[in-house]
């Protein structure tokens, strides 16, 4: 995975979180999904976006392993 890919995924994930209603100031790689009030419905939407943007399918086990925003970005970027 390239830095370019990572940056692209990061932008898509950050934008997605903001579109879900998370304040942009709170979004960082280290922020936990729980602290951002991201729940299973948000993750279902994020999975759909990952599929549409990058052709990456996130399974429910994948979603369970994601604790932080950075985890989500790494997982998606690692599968591109």
């Amino acid at each position, binding site marked *: 995975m390239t830095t370019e890919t990572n940056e692209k995924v990061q932008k898509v994930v950050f934008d997605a979180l903001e579109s879900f*209603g*998370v304040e942009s100031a709170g979004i960082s790689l280290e922020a936990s999904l729980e602290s951002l009030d991201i729940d299973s419905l948000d993750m279902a*939407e994020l999975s759909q976006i990952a*599929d549409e943007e990058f052709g990456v399918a996130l399974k429910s086990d994948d979603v369970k392993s994601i604790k932080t925003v950075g985890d989500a970005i790494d997982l998606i970027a690692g599968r591109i």
Partner: protein
Amino acid sequence: MLEVVVTGVGAVTPLGVGARTLHERWTAGESGIADGEAPCSAFDPLDTLSRKEARRADRFSQLAVAASDEAMREAGWGAGEHPYDATRVGCIMGTGIGGLSTLEQNHEELRTRGAGMVSPLSVPLMMGNAAPALLALRHGARGPCWGVVSACAAGANAIGAAARLIQHGDADAVITGGAEAALTPLSRASFEALGAVSKAGVSRPFDARRDGFIMGEGAGVLVLEEGNAARARGAEILAVVRGYGATCDAHHMTAPDPAGDGAARAILAALADAGIQPGELDYVNAHGTSTPLNDRSETLALKLALGDAAYDLPVSSTKSAIGHLLGAAGAVEAIATILALRGRVAPPTLGWAEPEEGLDLDYVPGVARPLAVTGDGPLLGLSNSFGFGGHNAALVLEVA
């Protein structure tokens, strides 16, 4: 039988945000109808909901949330807190259709972009029980909770079902009412295909020239509590739900029984439930849709149920000012009835000018009128709601 009282009301209607706004503007003869439709133009969901909450709710639920917050504030219930055991607080909300705009948007995604692009939020937003579920979540109501679906009688059926929960001891308090946001392309086309919508773009219930209803949207929410419990906590009692009656015409899927039999039976059942005679009523808030069929059969139903008393009562239609709020109508109109009784006023049926043979009740044309109050006793009002499917619901409401 336990007593059911109303301690808070809230509404979002085409006349604005707020139950009192509805009452004051309607009583002043103002209309929320523009260009043949009645949207809630003054409503901004972000005044009440966070961005996240707003995108997690179809417009009909957003309207319900705003109305519920107003009702809860008036009842004196704090944010997320209430004076009862949460498991004894219910939430029953009516709707005619549910999250129709969500359905239409996602169907468009399905058609144009494929199944993979249908939002995971579509089911929780469009389901007909979304509003009661969301209100229960927001207000921490963990008792009985479900949606009522009976077309344009849904709001009144919800209030009736909520009152029964309290009367039977299944809940100490219930957040109830109705919500609808069906000003969508599919809904417009469907109602127009039925010939139900006014081609003239005018709501004039009981007038000889009436040619259909005006589509509106909105929500009305009431906080109902068991009377002794409400008084014990020092709540202000706005009204008492004295009687409820519900029937079905079993006549036709859309047309009312032309003789008004089903509607009359609902009214009689509500009067019997309240233990009152027709002559004790002070005001009737009619269903009054402005369709040729409803206004004639409703007039007949009132005569059947109330006898000679029907001719002495002011009968007015809220729909003359805000159009038809479908599944929200019964709840908004119950609130309008309560506020009319509290204001000792019969708000007007706007647009009424030409009488029709047989439609000869006192429809309070054009201008509000003080209610003719005799003595110091409480005032009693009847609110009618009827829906496609032959559903009839009537509420008797008392104001001290």
